[in-house]
């Protein structure tokens, strides 16, 4: 305790909050070893081993439950698999050091089998599905006695030594538990600070926007679940050796699964250090409550525990890390006007010539139930061309866009894109389109609310730059170009609507697309911003990017577009030069009604 205070006092002022946080974590981790060694008491060892164990499991859970946002209440499946694999192999004479990898491998397979079909389920449904899987596993473990020993469980021989993970003294067990905690924390930290972590959080926040940014949302979630399952299984193996005895009731327990998730929740879900904090704080409190209340009356301890859980959830809904965050970031809030000038390069004076065809759209048809929303839409897009798409509300523009980016499959017709190597391809999924260099924005902005502006743009930048450093570099560059430079560290949620629209474009731009689909990026922003946006789009076009833009702001469409398509009731009613199109009587009729056509 004295150590902590002196250190914070000595280094207080000069250090940033982040560094201070890291020091606090380091002190905390050191304490996990130092306290039991200093006290030298077996029971204290047990408490600290339990802390490490829960912190490790909770950290592993957090990769799925926090980063990926999939609330698993069946994580004991993986822990149990690890435990059983370890014990079964030990009884065959194989060291748990190998057994834990075998367990991890089985757990990864189980994780993929369990989660793949469940990913289309969200929130409560995913949670219920994982509970159901857990129940099935438990019943099967009870049923297949030859393998699992059934209800009577399995024991290990008390072979003492490092190779068997069984010890007379407690320090080695603590060291192993601590080591596993470090591994889990390191993996969790590595994921969070690399591409996978960004992709997971992006997928959690806005699945469709993540897809548009080229994220294989199913793939990244499967990776998260696999890593989490492998870590949980390894911890399970260790715990089985520590318990020396396992049974289905305790290895595949719903209570246990909920507890793991709870530590993460109380510490701060989705944060790297939250689960650790949760376990460090809660395990001793639980033990103390049990010691103080357990012998008073049957049920009193459980009652108090339940009440405390409710209170914690009510008053710390974002966990301990939420409180920590509020204290540390209060002063760093971004201030100031968000309409910084767009640093658009001056337009080249040379009139623009459209190049070769890069996208062909042929005969698209789409029905929603009885509604014919797209009827025989076809056009081509040339390199370096800006194609405006206009039409009244409900004309089916966004539906066409969804088919041009893989979010909807047309009933008939096809979309082909010229690949960089010069072949025509017909991509099917958003990821395919992204790979070919088609980027899109959404009419209703889809920021990743839990991320900063920089991180939002990085999600796009990762498409071309897999390394964090490069992606950050690219994101900053894009942000400055888009006039978002001053807000790099602001939470995306704090931006104005104009800012969000720009962020939406910036994220796509960071993907360095060859074809850019912009869905009403100018709707709802003020005149100055519209002018800036027009300049921006022209400068983008001048770098050779082809743009298809749905717009309502006619002034913008007219000054921007090389060509215009008018869609009404799912059909193209006119296309061609902007000035000519607006004089077309079908177009006037569509926009203003029949009586205006002859006016």
């Amino acid at each position, binding site marked *: *305790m*004295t150590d902590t205070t002196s250190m914070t006092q000595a280094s207080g002022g000069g250090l940033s909050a982040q560094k201070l946080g890291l020091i606090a974590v380091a002190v905390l981790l050191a304490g996990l070893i130092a*306290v039991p060694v*200093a*006290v*030298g*008491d*077996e*029971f*204290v*060892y*047990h*408490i600290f081993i*339990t802390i490490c164990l829960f912190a490790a499991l909770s950290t592993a859970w957090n990769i799925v439950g926090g980063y990926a946002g999939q609330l698993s209440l069946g994580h004991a499946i993986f822990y149990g698999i690890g435990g059983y694999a370890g014990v079964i192999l030990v009884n065959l004479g194989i060291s748990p050091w190998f057994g834990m990898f075998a367990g991890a491998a089985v757990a990864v397979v189980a994780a993929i089998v369990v989660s793949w079909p469940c990913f289309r389920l969200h929130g409560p449904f995913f949670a219920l599905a994982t509970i159901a899987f857990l129940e099935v596993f438990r019943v099967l473990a*009870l049923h297949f006695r030859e393998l699992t020993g*059934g*209800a*009577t*469980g399995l*024991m290990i021989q*008390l072979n*003492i030594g490092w190779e068997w993970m*069984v*010890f*007379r003294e*407690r320090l080695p067990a603590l060291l192993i538990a601590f080591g596993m905690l470090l591994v889990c924390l390191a993996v969790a930290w590595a994921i969070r600070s690399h591409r996978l972590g960004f992709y997971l959080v992006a997928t959690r926040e806005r699945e469709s926007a993540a897809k548009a940014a080229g994220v294989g949302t199913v793939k990244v979630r499967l990776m998260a679940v696999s890593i989490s399952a492998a870590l949980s299984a390894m911890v399970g193996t260790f*715990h089985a050796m*520590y*318990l*020396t*005895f396992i*049974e289905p*009731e*305790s290895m595949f327990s719903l209570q246990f699964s909920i507890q793991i998730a709870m530590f993460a929740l109380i510490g701060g879900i989705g944060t790297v250090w939250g689960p650790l904090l949760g376990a460090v704080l809660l395990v*001793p409190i639980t*033990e*103390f409550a*049990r*010691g*103080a209340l*357990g*012998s008073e009356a*049957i*049920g*009193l*301890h*459980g009652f108090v525990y339940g009440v405390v859980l409710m209170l914690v959830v009510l008053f710390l809904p974002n966990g301990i890390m939420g409180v920590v965050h509020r204290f540390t970031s209060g002063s760093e809030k971004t201030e100031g006007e968000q309409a910084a000038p767009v640093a658009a390069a001056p337009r080249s004076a040379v009139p623009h010539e459209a190049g070769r065809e890069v996208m062909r759209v042929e005969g698209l048809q789409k029905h929603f139930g009885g509604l014919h929303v797209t009827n025989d839409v076809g056009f081509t897009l040339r390199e370096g061309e800006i194609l405006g798409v206009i039409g009244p509300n409900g004309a089916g523009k966004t539906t066409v866009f969804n088919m041009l980016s893989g979010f909807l499959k047309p009933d008939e017709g096809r979309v082909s894109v010229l690949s960089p190597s010069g072949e025509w391809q017909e991509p099917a999924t958003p990821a395919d389109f992204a790979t070919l260099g088609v980027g899109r924005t959404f009419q209703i902005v889809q920021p990743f609310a839990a991320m900063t502006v920089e991180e939002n743009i990085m999600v796009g930048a990762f498409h071309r730059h897999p390394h964090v450093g490069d992606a950050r570099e690219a994101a900053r560059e894009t942000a400055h170009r888009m006039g978002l430079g001053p807000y790099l560290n602001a939470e995306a949620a704090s931006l104005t609507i104009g800012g969000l629209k720009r962020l939406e474009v910036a994220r796509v731009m960071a993907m360095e697309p060859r074809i850019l689909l912009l869905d009403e990026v100018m709707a709802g922003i003020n005149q100055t911003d519209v002018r800036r946006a027009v300049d921006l789009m022209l400068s983008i076009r001048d770098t050779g990017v082809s743009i298809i833009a749905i717009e309502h702001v006619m002034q913008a469409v007219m000054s921007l577009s090389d060509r215009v398509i008018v869609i009404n009731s799912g059909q193209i009613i006119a296309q061609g030069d902007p000035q000519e199109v607006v004089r077309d009587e079908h177009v006037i009729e569509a926009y203003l009604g029949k009586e205006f056509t002859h006016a």
Partner: protein
Amino acid sequence: MTLKTLLTATAVSALVAGAAQAEVKFGALYPFSGGLALLGEESFRGVELAVDEINAAGGIQGEQIELVRGDAVDNNQAIGEARRLISREDVKAILGTYSSSRSIAASQVAELSGIPYFELGAVADEVTGRDLQYLFRTNPTAETMGIMTIDMILDEIAPGLGVEASDLVIGVIHEDSAYGTSVAGHQEEYGAEKGLNIVTVQGYPSSTVDMSSLVLDLKDRSVNIVLQTSYQNDSVLFLNQSAEAGFEPDAIIGGGGGYSLTATEEAVGALMEGVLDVDFTQYAVNTEFTPGLEDFLVAYQNKYGEEPRSGHSLNNYVGAMAVLEGIGAGEGFEPDQIVAAVKAIDIPAGETAAGYGVHFGDQNQNDRAMMMGMQWQGGKLVTVYPRDAAVAEFQIGD
């Protein structure tokens, strides 16, 4: 004050309930909270009464005994509490545990620490099947229970019904935790050995709310002897749903748990009449065979103001008395002295309040431990088997 003592004072003493002045400490590790709390507490009362009695008579080796409670609410906790008792409380031995799985987990810890562990109530075979040096068990096991059930069929039921034992159609059902599973396993094995016709062995979760399908299955197979190892809820369900389905086997033999509890009888009323039960010694027993039982009941009533809720307290009392007196006759409280002392215990059958003798044989299991066969007669659970412990006639057939 050194850092070490400071940390010890703050981090540790906070976790530990204050200790009173006592000369020799023993740990009592039972589930005091959670789902098994009722019978865990009941078991502990037996130990508490034994300690009171011994302390009143001057303690052991001239020292008073203090019991330190540990709450084995789950397996990990059983380990933690065992460690706390051993390292913080410095207990000389641990008594416990009622639940087999927690006993197995906690006794592994005691073994590694070299502290004697006395199991007074858990029945699973695995408790003593592990070649442990410091683990002793005084109570009868699942195997005793399974064998006793089958013997009762052979000795009393088949003759009482006037049929060959091999002509009986036997169905074994059990709750699917370690307890029911291991008892049923022994019933199946030993029954087959004796040439009995066991047509089905079925497990079910004890929390179930419906057993009608199981009842119909037994009925469909024309089962006339049902062996059920169960807790309270499932005993009630089975008896009720059997009656509702018109399933009337010639005999139902319960295996402890729910079948020994008065509350079960209150729940099902007349359906309980004639139902058999194999369990630890209960209270309506021939007291010539169980000397000290009446005194135990008086002491229980005085201390807790109620009747014992089950035979668990009695069996833990008997086990604790035997072990503690055995240690008292020894030469000290070092682990090896305790082990030597209890290995010398030699109490013949018919001299304890539970009827069975105490002598640790192979694997440190009490090889004189036995159960009793009982029957619900007129709303009371009376001992009917074996004959020398019986207080009432075995009623079977008409």
